[in-house]
């Protein structure tokens, strides 16, 4: 009876996960989908706590531990999630993903301990008593969870600047070797004498952690969203291992669902950047070019524009396009930007935003950022539509964007970003670029646009520059 209700709770959980994920991929229903999945998760969790029975018909105990764990986790989780700044979202997601991976690895560790205590005295190897399938799920959960945990931590560190890119020659071969080593050690754990089984298992987990670190280290910071999505699907698979272990359908279905969806999402993200997953993982895209590019390699002369001139130009324009980028997010200048937009509109200037899908550091970053400042939705143009309109635009104001307007993506086949669709701002009459220096953006490459006759630079922090612009325009 009790178990039957648990089964039903699990079915409800699985169904809400599917529904939730389905709705999450539709802009209008996304928020409701998230809530539905959260509701199903809550049902599944409490059903487990109160209804679960072990094979011999006993309920769970250690309620004090369980509830304190739940309460502590909920409080920290809620606080962290509520406090994090919008720009730090991807870091937060990476962090939470790491926690999930660690959880899966810990479960496997406890389960291993359980089996180990039972058998270490009676037999001389795991292989003799533990079915391979059972050991395999334990081991896979530990390894995948460990890789996901360590990788996510590195991704987190990279996103907030604590961890720097690190590459050396032959790194991918070393990584492959480490991976092979894990497989060997996992085999040794199963087949070696029980006196050392636990040591081998410990080595398995440790090497998995090392592999996680080495896997993510060489990948450029700009590619972290892709990596996080991949690690996300790893954690899903690790959770599914737990589902196999306990023959628990809700873990199994939830884990596999995320594993599959995450893998596809990873591929879709790569496609949006016009690159292959292989290229992201092995290409060391971000790093190499930060090294080779850099401010030394200036290709020509750029010209500057004063705030007064910029204000004049924009006040008398018919149509102004604002191109927001990562710099706008860093400067937290979205509200000031919205102010400028309103001011110009009052003066009869038509103002629109051109949103590049990968501007910023996470997909949809600019949409979220500008929504935060209450910029109205119909002012935001997607890349294709914006590109159609630049021809009839008088002034394009670029606020802290760089790679997404780099014409090298169109013209220079040797450029690492070649093939990425960009905002073709050079079709407009005038281009004003606001950034703090001539330094390159995340891809670490020079931007020809800045040296073109149409373009003038307006140096300074985005927020400060916008404030000055606003003051000047009010005077015009």
């Amino acid at each position: 009876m009790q178990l039957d209700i648990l089964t039903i709770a699990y079915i409800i959980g699985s169904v809400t996960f599917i529904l939730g994920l389905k709705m999450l991929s539709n802009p209008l229903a996304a928020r409701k989908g998230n809530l539905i999945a959260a509701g199903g998760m809550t049902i599944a969790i409490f059903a487990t706590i109160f209804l679960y029975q072990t094979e011999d018909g006993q309920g769970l105990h250690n309620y004090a531990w369980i509830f304190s764990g739940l309460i502590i986790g909920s409080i920290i989780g809620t606080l962290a999630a509520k406090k994090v700044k919008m720009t730090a979202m991807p870091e937060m997601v990476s962090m939470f993903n790491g926690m999930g991976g660690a959880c899966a690895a810990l479960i496997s560790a406890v389960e291993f301990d359980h089996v180990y205590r039972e058998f270490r005295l009676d037999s001389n190897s795991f292989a003799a008593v533990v079915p391979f399938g059972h050991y395999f799920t334990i081991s896979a959960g530990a390894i995948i969870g460990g890789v996901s945990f360590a990788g996510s931590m590195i991704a987190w560190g990279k996103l907030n600047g604590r961890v720097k890119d690190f590459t050396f020659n032959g790194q991918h071969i070393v990584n492959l070797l480490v991976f092979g080593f894990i497989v060997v050690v996992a085999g040794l754990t199963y087949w070696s004498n029980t006196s050392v089984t636990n040591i081998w298992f410990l080595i398995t987990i440790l090497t998995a952690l090392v592999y996680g670190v080495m896997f993510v280290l060489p990948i450029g910071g700009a590619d972290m969203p892709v990596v996080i999505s991949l690690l996300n699907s790893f954690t899903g698979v690790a959770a599914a291992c737990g589902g196999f272990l306990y023959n628990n359908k809700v873990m199994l279905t939830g884990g596999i669902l995320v594993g599959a969806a995450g893998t596809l999402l990873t591929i879709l993200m790569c496609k949006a950047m016009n690159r292959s997953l292989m290229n992201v993982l092995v290409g060391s895209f971000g790093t190499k070019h930060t090294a080779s590019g850099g401010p030394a390699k200036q290709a020509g002369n750029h010209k500057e524009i004063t705030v007064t001139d910029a204000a004049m130009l924009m006040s008398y324009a018919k149509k102004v396009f604002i191109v927001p980028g990562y710099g706008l997010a860093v400067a937290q200048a979205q509200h000031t930007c919205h102010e400028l937009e309103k001011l110009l509109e009052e003066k009869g200037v038509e103002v629109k935003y051109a949103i590049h899908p990968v501007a910023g550091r996470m997909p949809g970053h600019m949409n979220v950022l500008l929504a935060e400042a209450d910029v109205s939705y119909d002012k935001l143009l997607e890349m294709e539509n914006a590109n159609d309109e630049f021809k009839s635009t008088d002034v394009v104001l670029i606020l802290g964007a760089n790679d997404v307007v780099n014409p090298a993506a169109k013209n220079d086949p040797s450029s690492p970003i070649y093939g990425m669709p960009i905002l073709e701002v050079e079709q407009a009459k005038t281009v004003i670029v606001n950034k703090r220096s001539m330094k390159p953006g995340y891809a670490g490459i020079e931007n020809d646009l800045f040296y073109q006759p149409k373009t003038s630079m307006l140096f300074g922090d985005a927020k400060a520059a916008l404030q000055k612009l606003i003051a000047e325009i009010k005077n015009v």
Partner: protein
Amino acid sequence: MENILKLVTENQQMIYIVILMVFLGIEVIGRVPSVLHTPLMSGANAIHGVVIIGAIIVMGKASTDNYLALVLGFLAVVLGTLNVVGGFVVTDRMLEMFKKKK
């Protein structure tokens, strides 16, 4: 070889569930607009927090004198909860911003 084949029949239903789930995961994501990639990633992230259920089972089964299991299990519960709660809350915050657009 024969053993592996036998495993297939024994776990037939599981295999079906896994295959169907993989198809569903792929179908459901289909072609999302790139604007939704981040919230979708974070929502999926919250869902795999279902691993918390494993942590609860481990914790609830551990004998009260096995301190290693208790401590590891407790840690697993805390981390799993972080994943679930943090994941859903962060996703909700993100989507709240998106909704304002309309």
